[in-house]
């Protein structure tokens, strides 16, 4: 077994009393002494600091070619509008495979002279290799290892972060900007994965611990582990790669059609031309039978990832599967999301999830379970 990798905040996590788990090859904090429930609620009402340094950070640039050229190359792989992404703006996207399945989902920013892309920890080597092999040799793709990535999320995040780096009120949701701190450059975006207002900050490994200590010295912020990160994103209906997304699920089945701008769809100015276009464009027009849905388990038992769904309580007609599920600290009840095969299921039929050879009834509901609160204006 290979040794687990450590982030730049490893010592800080230990000193804060974190409980560590292996995650995507890293030793990461699952929770701190506060515990998942209180960390979750704290982040919702105040602010939380997350170490997400295990995620991949890519810099895509060229010494010989323009940003337009890089964007056009990226649009051959990504079904999103890269050319139309303005300088210092960020956008959600994904890399489809030839069958329309998802190799990875990501956040991409236009930084004027390069694109900055944040990818999932478990997929970074795969993404890097895929991009390297499928993009012009005139473009450089760097998986940077010298920078950490942290997130500050929650309603007080602007106030807390501005105490350290200055005015942030002009930065709106998905804006990106550089800030200087102790002579080093922070790459700050107003985004995150909790469904709340907040920031993600890429910063040199060498600066990360002192920066985070200074953040945690402010009032109203607590360190938050991966446990609460998972419950926070699930409440807002955000997908987790490896559970809700994988190489066999298309973005349309996953309910991510919104992320494919009109300019890339049928009838758009730059229609198609991306990997997986045949399946994806067809599904936009026809609606797939497999669809990501939200469920409220009717009882108290959480129905988690891997729970099979049936239209009867005998396990005869399998209609889908839960891909993420757990307890919602905000709603004080279990919540689940997963896929339903609408060819095998009528909306007026009951739904049961099978756990430990028992059948628990669930009710179809709508995403998100908890409304998002991004700073859009």
């Amino acid at each position, binding site marked *: 077994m290979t040794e687990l990798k450590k982030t730049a905040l490893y010592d800080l996590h230990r000193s804060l009393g974190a409980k560590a788990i292996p995650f995507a090859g890293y030793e990461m904090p*699952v*929770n701190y002494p506060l*515990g*998942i*429930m*209180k960390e*979750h609620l704290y982040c919702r009402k105040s602010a939380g600091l997350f170490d997400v340094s295990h995620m991949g950070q890519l810099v895509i640039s060229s010494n010989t070619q323009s940003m337009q050229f890089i964007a056009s190359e990226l649009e051959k792989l990504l079904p999103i509008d890269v050319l139309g992404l303005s300088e210092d703006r960020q956008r959600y996207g994904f890399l489809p495979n030839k069958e329309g399945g998802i190799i990875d989902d990501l956040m991409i920013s236009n930084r004027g002279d390069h694109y900055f892309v944040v990818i999932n920890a478990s997929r970074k080597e795969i993404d890097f290799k895929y991009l390297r092999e499928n993009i012009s040799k005139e473009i450089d793709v760097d998986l940077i290892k010298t920078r950490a990535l942290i997130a500050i999320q929650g309603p007080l995040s602007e106030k807390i972060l501005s105490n350290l780096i200055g005015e942030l009120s002009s930065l709106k949701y998905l804006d990106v900007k550089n800030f200087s701190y102790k002579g080093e450059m922070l790459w700050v975006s107003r985004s995150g994965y909790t469904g709340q207002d907040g920031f993600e900050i890429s910063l040199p490994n060498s600066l990360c611990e002192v920066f985070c200590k200074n953040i945690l010295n402010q009032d109203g912020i607590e360190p938050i582990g991966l*446990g609460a990160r998972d*419950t926070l994103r699930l409440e807002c209906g955000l997908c987790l790669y490896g559970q809700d997304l994988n190489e066999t699920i298309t973005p349309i089945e996953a309910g991510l059609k919104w992320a494919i701008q009109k300019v890339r769809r049928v009838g758009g100015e730059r229609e198609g031309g991306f990997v997986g276009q045949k399946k994806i464009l067809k599904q936009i027009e026809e609606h797939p039978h497999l669809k990501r849905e939200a469920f409220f388990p009717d009882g*108290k*038992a*959480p129905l*988690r990832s891997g729970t099979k769904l049936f239209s009867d309580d005998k396990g005869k007609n399998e209609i889908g599967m839960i891909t993420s599920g*757990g*307890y919602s*600290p905000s709603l004080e009840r*279990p919540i689940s999301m997963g896929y339903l095969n609408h060819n095998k299921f009528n909306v007026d039929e009951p739904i049961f999830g099978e756990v*430990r050879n028992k059948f628990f009834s669930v009710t179809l509901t709508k995403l998100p379970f908890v409304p998002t609160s991004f700073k859009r204006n």
Partner: protein
Amino acid sequence: MKFTEEHEWLESDGDMVKVGITEYAAEQLGDIVFIELPDVGTSVTKGQEIVVIESVKAASDILAPLDGEITEINNAIVDDPSMVNNDPTGEAWFFKMSLKNQGELDGLMSEDEYKKHIE
């Protein structure tokens, strides 16, 4: 009070023993959100999975500590699972059972032995 390696405590209560989980176990599990207890009258054998506990993080089982029969269950913890995090060795007992062989209780760990076990 006696203890098992599976982090349960057992306490004599008349002819019965009362069973719960230790503070250490409750802390390891984290915030408990769901508990499923066995039916009263169930015959159980040592090591059998008889209770389901779900924390925010994950599901786990509690095993029957000894052979016997379930005589009473604590429905209060089913209604409010967080009681187990707050008072695991007091109000938040799980069930009472009659032992097939009363003498087996003496074979379990003492508090000192259990403390060494979790160190």
